């Protein structure tokens, strides 16, 4: 474990804690951006260069812009929304989170040591190597993700439509209907 690892670990944990505890939603969002960028740096160190760039472009770029846009659109920057009806929830949440961490750490400790750098063939995680895998064995998941992204786009557009517009009937048509009714009578 090097100084770099410790530094990035401290940065990741500190920014994550800030993201889940800060009162102002904009501040929490910016802490989350810091967490995403630190994670991208860790990806670079783990020989996942393409993943790191995608992390910066998609997460730190697109997703966080969407979050900050919605926060500012709704003027909902206050995380504190009136008196808490469940004040005992916070310590329980902390206890559950600690329990989950212990369980995960126990599960990882039973993995046994995976010898580091035994036979690394990651090719730096560059698109040249990753693309061959994505469009090889991972082709069907990639196609399904494409369908899902399309469906999600349509769903998002439908969800935020102001209201379903009633079919407007032209006044001329109404007039003609009334005349036809009078003639029929």
């Amino acid at each position, binding site marked *: 474990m090097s100084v770099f690892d410790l530094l990035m670990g401290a940065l990741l*944990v500190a920014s994550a804690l800030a*993201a*889940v505890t800060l009162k102002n939603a904009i501040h929490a969002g910016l802490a989350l951006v810091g967490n995403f960028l630190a994670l991208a740096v860790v990806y670079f160190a783990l020989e996942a260069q393409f993943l790191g760039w995608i992390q910066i472009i998609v997460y730190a770029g697109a997703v966080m812009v*969407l979050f900050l846009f919605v926060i500012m659109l709704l003027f909902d920057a206050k995380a504190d*929304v009136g008196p808490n009806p469940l004040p005992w929830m916070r310590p329980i949440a902390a206890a559950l989170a600690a329990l989950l961490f212990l369980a995960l750490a126990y599960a990882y400790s039973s993995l046994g040591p995976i010898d580091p750098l035994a036979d690394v063939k990651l090719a730096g995680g560059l698109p040249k190597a990753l693309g061959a895998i994505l469009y090889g064995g991972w082709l069907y998941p990639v196609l399904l993700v494409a369908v899902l992204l399309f469906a999600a786009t349509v769903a998002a557009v439908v969800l935020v439509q102001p209201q379903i517009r009633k079919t407007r009937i032209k006044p001329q048509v109404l007039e003609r209907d009334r005349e036809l009714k009078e003639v029929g009578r």
Partner: protein
Amino acid sequence: MSYYLLLSALLFAIGLYGVLARRTAILIFMSVELMLNSANLALAAFARGSGNLNGQAMALIVIALAAAEVAVGLGIVVAVFRSRQSTAVDDLAEFRG
């Protein structure tokens, strides 16, 4: 390698705390993003440890899924805000049985 696995477990637990303790829908979504990212970190660490690129491919797919989830989730948040002028999840109690 196992250091990064422990780090990802810690980030996942912090995200769980955020999901349970936060009280507005947007901040809960942010905590969910934190959990998804910690899973990606574990996948990248596994890829590094086993010298196999499949972990990174899976992490890329998780990122695409997260983008779809954010689009739909924030759409729901905006729709709820339109009808209630609030995104506090404690108020969403109409479905109580």
